[in-house]
């Protein structure tokens, strides 16, 4: 064991920050090349490198925490701060898109017909699939809380069941939203309505997929006995992220789907 007088974790040298940076560079430049010259090589390479980096970096964190015991109370506190700060940054990310939506919808220009929804746009009925989606995500918030309590109380079977249910609800939301996208009478190219609608809900959908993936990893770890009834921060981080995704949807539903119709 490392001979240290402090409870912090001095991480071993790792190549993943470098591979991540290179991957991000290839991804961004690849995106530009794809958009202008119709070539996906750089983009694909960047994506693969980034996915490999994420897998190996997070795998190493699990090894350091669960298998080597480096996640002492102060280290865990730092991880909590980190996740909270990250989610806060994501809140600001979405705040921008809400700003864009309200900027355009509160004072609709003459080109739109001076009204919102703009002339020619038939918005989705907020009381059909969007309402179902709201119920699905709220229910998933309940099941993820159930999973958390199951873990804290040491009930393995219930934890696995409730976590699986949460993930299934997440998939159901994604499926429903994909159907909505396919059937929608308007596209992203339909003026500022289309832009604000699909960019805001699109990024939200991406975050649902990310959140579901995070929860799925937690399910795998729970099955493999990684979590203890006191120490299961990976799961808590996933649950926080999932609640954040749920709250963003609620704002989207109220603002864009309901008020915006």
């Amino acid at each position, binding site marked *: *064991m*490392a*001979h240290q*007088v*402090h*409870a912090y974790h001095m991480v071993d040298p790792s190549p993943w920050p470098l591979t991540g940076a290179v991957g991000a560079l290839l991804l961004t430049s690849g995106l530009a090349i794809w958009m202008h010259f119709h070539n996906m090589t750089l983009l694909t390479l960047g994506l693969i490198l980034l996915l490999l980096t994420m897998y190996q970096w997070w795998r190493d964190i699990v090894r350091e925490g669960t*298998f*080597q*015991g*480096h*996640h*002492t*109370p*102060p280290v865990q506190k730092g991880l909590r701060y980190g996740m909270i700060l990250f989610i806060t940054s994501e809140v600001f990310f979405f705040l921008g898109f809400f700003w864009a939506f309200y900027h355009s919808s509160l004072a609709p220009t003459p080109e739109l017909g001076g009204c919102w929804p703009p002339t020619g746009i038939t918005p989705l009925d907020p009381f059909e699939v969007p309402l179902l989606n709201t119920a699905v995500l709220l229910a998933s918030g309940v099941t993820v809380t159930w999973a958390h309590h199951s*873990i804290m*109380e*040491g*009930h*393995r*079977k219930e*934890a696995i069941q409730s976590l699986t249910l949460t993930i299934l609800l997440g998939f159901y939301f994604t499926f429903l939203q994909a159907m909505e996208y396919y059937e929608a009478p308007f596209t992203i190219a339909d003026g500022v309505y289309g832009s604000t609608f699909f960019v805001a809900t699109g990024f939200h959908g991406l975050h649902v997929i990310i959140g579901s993936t995070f929860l799925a990893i937690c399910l795998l770890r729970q099955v493999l*006995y990684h*979590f*203890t*009834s*006191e*120490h299961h921060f990976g799961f808590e981080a996933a649950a926080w992220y999932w609640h954040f995704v749920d709250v963003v949807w609620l704002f989207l539903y109220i603002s864009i789907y309901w008020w915006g119709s």
Partner: protein
Amino acid sequence: VCSLQLKAVINAFLSCCLVNHTVLFTGIPTDEEQATGLEKVIMKAMKQGEDPFNMMKPKHYAGSKADPHLVPSITNKRIVGCCVCVGEEDNTAVVWFWLHEGEAQRCPSCGSHYKLVPHELPH
């Protein structure tokens, strides 16, 4: 069948001897059972009321000759920052000094007593 019987025997034995063996009963281990490495060392120390890695605030002492501040150290000297003289509101005027092994030293500003207590590196 033999291994099933063996499992039942072990289960019975453990449930008699161990009070809180949750893995056998409900399936999720506790830190007591599964913690490892530094996390385990700290957990064990905290259960005995010890803080070898200085995670908590230093213990409170009177600072007098009879009850000096005891300062743990892994070598024969350690830097001390005295806040006693300054008062709680103003921590921009901490008095820093080296505390050496041996007789208790006094803070150059307020005169509180400090004594170095050498001990082993926590493993």
